[in-house]
Each structure stands twice: as structure tokens, then as C-alpha cells.
């Protein structure tokens, strides 16, 4: 590392504007308005340096930044860049944390790789050096105490949004528990009724699979509520229902759900314990066995609702070839195309959760769905107003407006 000659301190004061102190006369203009301060919103180890632009002299010139730890004297070059760059406008900070002045440059000078970043504050000296061809000018050194800060102001928009989500969340939870919340009926539920009706007419069984997810997954939970609804209809029309299972725990839960539905419909005599049965804990063996059953029994309707992975392909195909009405639903985006093309109705992602919440009225499912709706409403509003304001700002040349809107939706 090249070390410039140590220059005696002329003005050992903080934040003092310095004058050019080049030893020999040079064609370069003096560097003015040089200040140093602690970099706000960081973990320490960086200072905010600002200086005045040098105008035309910046062309082809390089700016070098030197730092020295007052505890261990000796200058170290910590940054080097074309002199025209790093204007105050280029600083990547939002308007609520940074007000750029015209004709000024700024740099967040990071000294941590040169001097490390101790936990306590450190006193560092900085100086700038403008180099062009063989000539150079320097500022007088400026001392500053730098350290960590308690709040990263540029992440303020993120914080506000997070607090809003927390408030909305608790509000919806309490509302859902006290009064219940409104959720519209999902069109897919009508399709379910229709499918069960047809199965009754044809006198053939109905297959329902909750997928291969464990009980802890939301799609599995939603699927068991939908199974409850299906079982109620089945009990009412006295159709036969078959629920093959992948996970023994999910099976236990589903047995309870189906039994409850038969009781509610006052058909406990029609309930049989073998409606729910265990097939296999192996993805492909499960799919192959269920395929074989569907192929043999030619059910009138198949429901594949829950968490499905690669077996979606195998299941949906066989149902389609036997001519069953098929209703599917999963949160797995990669499986949705297969379901959509081979099933009569598909619940896409959140629709599945909504259907589960609509049927079960469970306050926790409801509140999650409500916070999601709140977020979507916020996004819609933000996109519409944001794009209108930006376009207006662009057309009428209101630069500050564009800056404000742009920075509001930026992450720092």
C-alpha cells in the first residue's frame, strides 16, 4: 500500500472546512467544504464524508480517501474513485434519512477493513486527495468519532409496515374470535356439491385424498375442513366415500372429522371406520396403489385437495381416464398446471385456504386470510397511486415527487 507523506496537522479541529495544503502550486482547484461525521444508521466503522464538487477539474481526475486511526497513527488509503462520481444525489439513502445538496459529494467511508470494527466508538482522521496526471491537491485532515447507532433510519418504511401488520393481525384475531369475519363463498365449493350430486345419481363411490402433507401444513388443515363438508353431503345422500391416506396422523384426524360429519347429519349408522384407510408412507407406492383402486372401482368423483408433490401427475391422470369428475386443490405451484388441465375444477393456492376457513370458521385461519387480504388491498392501492404519481411526476417533471414515491417502496 502506498503511503503518502504525513502532513503536519494544520487545523486539528472537528468539522472544520479546510483549505488546500498542497506543497507545490498545482493546476488543480483546492478542495473545499470537506466535513466528516459519524455515518448514521450503521454498526460502526464508517464515517460520512462530504465535500464540494470541483467542477470541470474532475474530468479524468481520481479522488483518493485516506484514513488514520488516532490510536495507531499512519495513513491508509480506504477508497479511490473517479472524482466526478459519488455526488450526494448518488447516496443510496431514502429522503427521510438524507437530504442531498447540489454541488456536493458524499461518501460512506468504511474503515472496518483497515482498522477493524471495535465495539466502542473510535476516533478516526480522514483526508481527501485529488489526483490528476502528476498533480495532486489534499485537504487538511479532519477528525471524527465514529460508532454504532441505535436505529437504521433508512429501514423506517419497513418498520412502519411491520408494525401495521402486527396491529392488523391482532385486530383481526380479536374480531374473528368475537364476531367472526366475512369471507366470500368460493366458487369451487359449488363444484363440490355438483360432483357429490352426480356420484349419488350414478351410485358410484367418491375418492378423497388429503395429499402427502403432515398435519402441521396449512393445506392439510384446510383439506380436512373440506373433507368434513364433503362427508356431510355424502352422509346426507348416502353415497359411499373412500379416503386413502399417506400419513397415519392425518388419518386419525380425518376419522374424527368424518365421524363428526355423519353424526351432524344424523346418520351415525352409515358411518364405517374403514372410510379412512392407510395406504403407504412412500410417495410413489401410495400413488400407484391409489391409482390401481381408482382404476378398478371407477369412482364418480375424485377429490385431490391438500399438499401434493410429484404424485399429482399420477393421480390426476388416472381419474381423468376413468371419466370421474375431478376436483383438485393445492398450494404447490409446480403441480397446479397438471391439476388444472386434467381436473374439472381446481382450487389455486390461497383459494384452498379460503375454502377451508369458510367452512371451518376457525378464527386462526380466518385471521390469517384477513391479514393477507389487507396486504393485498394495500398493494393494490400502492401500485395504482404509485404508478399514477410516478407517471404524473415524469410528465410534469416534478423530480422530488418521483424521488419520494420511488424511495417509499424501496428496501434499504
Amino acid at each position, binding site marked *: 500500500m502506498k503511503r503518502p507523506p504525513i502532513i503536519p496537522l494544520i487545523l486539528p479541529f472537528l468539522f472544520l472546512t479546510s483549505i488546500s495544503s498542497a506543497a507545490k502550486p498545482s493546476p488543480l482547484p483546492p478542495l473545499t467544504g470537506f466535513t466528516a461525521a459519524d455515518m448514521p444508521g450503521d454498526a460502526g466503522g464508517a464515517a460520512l464524508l462530504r465535500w464540494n464538487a470541483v467542477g470541470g477539474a474532475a474530468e479524468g481526475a481520481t479522488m483518493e480517501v485516506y484514513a488514520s486511526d488516532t490510536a495507531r497513527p499512519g495513513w491508509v488509503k480506504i477508497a479511490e474513485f473517479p472524482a466526478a462520481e459519488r455526488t450526494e444525489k448518488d447516496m443510496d439513502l431514502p429522503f427521510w434519512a438524507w437530504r442531498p445538496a447540489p454541488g456536493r459529494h458524499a461518501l460512506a467511508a468504511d474503515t472496518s477493513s483497515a482498522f477493524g470494527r471495535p465495539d466502542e466508538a473510535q476516533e478516526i482522521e480522514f483526508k481527501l486527495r485529488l489526483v490528476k496526471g502528476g498533480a495532486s491537491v489534499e485537504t487538511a485532515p479532519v477528525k471524527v468519532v465514529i460508532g454504532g447507532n441505535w436505529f437504521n433510519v433508512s429501514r423506517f418504511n419497513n418498520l412502519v409496515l411491520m408494525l401495521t401488520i402486527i396491529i392488523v393481525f391482532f385486530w383481526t384475531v380479536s374480531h374473528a374470535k368475537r364476531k367472526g369475519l366475512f369471507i366470500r363463498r368460493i366458487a369451487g365449493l359449488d363444484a363440490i356439491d355438483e360432483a357429490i350430486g352426480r356420484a349419488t345419481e350414478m351410485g358410484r363411490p367418491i375418492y378423497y385424498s388429503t395429499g402427502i402433507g403432515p398435519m402441521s401444513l396449512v393445506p392439510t388443515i384446510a383439506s380436512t375442513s373440506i373433507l368434513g363438508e364433503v362427508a356431510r353431503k355424502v352422509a346426507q345422500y348416502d353415497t359411499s366415500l373412500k379416503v386413502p391416506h399417506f400419513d397415519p396422523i392425518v388419518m386419525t384426524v380425518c376419522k374424527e372429522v368424518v365421524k363428526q360429519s355423519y353424526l351432524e347429519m344424523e346418520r351415525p349408522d352409515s358411518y364405517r371406520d374403514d372410510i379412512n384407510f392407510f395406504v403407504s408412507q412412500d410417495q410413489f407406492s401410495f400413488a400407484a396403489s391409489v391409482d390401481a383402486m381408482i382404476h378398478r372401482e371407477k369412482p364418480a368423483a375424485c377429490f385431490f385437495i391438500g399438499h401434493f408433490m410429484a404424485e399429482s401427475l399420477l393421480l390426476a391422470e388416472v381419474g381423468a381416464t376413468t371419466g370421474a369428475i375431478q376436483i383438485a386443490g393445492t398450494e404447490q405451484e409446480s403441480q397446479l398446471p397438471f391439476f388444472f388441465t386434467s381436473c374439472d375444477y381446481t382450487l389455486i393456492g390461497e383459494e384452498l385456504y379460503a375454502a377451508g376457513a369458510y367452512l371451518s370458521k376457525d378464527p386462526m385461519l380466518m385471521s390469517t386470510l384477513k391479514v393477507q387480504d389487507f396486504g393485498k388491498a394495500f398493494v*393494490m392501492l400502492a401500485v*395504482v397511486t404509485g404508478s399514477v404519481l410516478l407517471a404524473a411526476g415524469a410528465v410534469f417533471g416534478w423530480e422530488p415527487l418521483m424521488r419520494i414515491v420511488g424511495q417509499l417502496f424501496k*428496501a434499504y
Partner: protein
Amino acid sequence: MEFLGNTWNAFAAIFTVTPGWMTFGGWVAAGLTICLFSFLYKDNPFFKVAEHLYLGAGMGWLFQVYLFQTWKPKVFLPLMEGQYSVLIPTLLGLSLVTQFFPRISWISRYGFTFIMGYGSGLVIPLTISTDFLKQIGGTIAPFMVSEINSGNIMSLLNGTFVAFGFICVLFYFFFSVEHKGAVKKASNIGIYFLMLYFGAAFGNTVMGRFSLLYGRFDDLYKYSAPDYFYATHVVLGLLVAYFILDKLVLSRRGGGQEAH
């Protein structure tokens, strides 16, 4: 002691990979691959054996990676060097295992809450910035055109299209209002955007799955070479023979059941 050392060396010598082993490897690989593919004809014992081997071998591989690349350098060696602070996360980690013993399974909660609390704390602000703020910012960014020229007209048009589609899709997934009138129209448009997405995903999935199959076929082709003594051909032939025999035996017994 010397005897033990010698025995170990003799044992380890069995595991030296010779050129003969490399040829045999071709047979093993071709055999396992074809056993798994035999599921396409129908479910059969060879498939089941290979599938269970896969489960075990996969766990075995993970186990040895964890053993040599995590537990040894991150737990065992620091403890040997006297860094006892490693004990805290180690005990928390081991507490997870108590889950399998119902009477003391509550101990595992200490480990789980330690992981879940940390993970949840990290993910919240990052999701807000990555999947929320930046997505809004990205959607409105194309509207920031200071001067209109042919280049940014396209980006403005596409940007409008993205924003419009985005909002329509959000309407489709909006459950707090009934889908009537304008909302219904918007959500009906939204579903077409979703279909374009799923269609593109379907097309790409076709390429992805075929690529995987290509990889296996490429290996099978390699093992069908004379250097490997036609491993692929022989294994395939044997399996076909099995299925023919199986069918003959079944039909003599009065017909079996085909999977489909």
C-alpha cells in the same frame, strides 16, 4: 494394538477401488436405474428394493456429510480444544431428539423454540422488503419515464401490462368482497394471467423432467458399451425375462391383476 491396526488395514484394503470395481460400478448403476424404471411397467419387488435402498442410501450420505463436515469440525474438535461454549447449541440440538421418547419429549421444545424464534425473527423484515416493498417498487418503476422515446414506450407498455395483470390476480385472490360486477371482471382477467404463468411453468416442467430422463438414459447408454460388458443390455434382458415369467406363472394360477 498392532493386531487391531493390521485388521483395520486389511478391512480397509477391501474398500480400495480397482479398475474392476469401476466396471462393476457400471453394472450396479445400470441395474439400479433399470429396477427403478421397471415401475413404469408395474409395481414390482425390484422397484421396491431399489426404492428402499434409495431411502437408506440417501440418509447414509447425509449422515456421513453431517458427521465429517459438521459434527466433527463444529462440535468435536472445538470441544477437544476446550471451547466449551459449543456445548450450549449442542445440547439444544440434541434436545430435539427427545421428541422420540414421549415421557421426556418436552425437552425437545427448548431446541425447537430456539430455532423457530430465531427463524421467525429473521424472516419477517426480510419478507417485507424482498417480497413486498420491492415488488411494489418493481411494479411501479416502469412508469418513471422522464422522456418518451421508442425504447421506453415498450417498457412502459409492458410495465402497464404487468401492473394491470398483477392487480387483477390480486382481485382473484381477494376474499373479503363478493365477486360481483367490476371485481368479478377483474378477477376473471386475473385468472388468464395465472393461466399464462401455469402454461409457461408446464412447458418448462416438460423440459426439466425430460432433462432428468436424458441424464439417466445417457448413463445407461454409457454402461451399454463393451467396456462395461453390455451391462444395460443384460440387466434389461433379465428384467424382461422376469416379467414374462411372472406373467406366465400368474396366468397359470388363473389370471392376475394388472395395476392398470
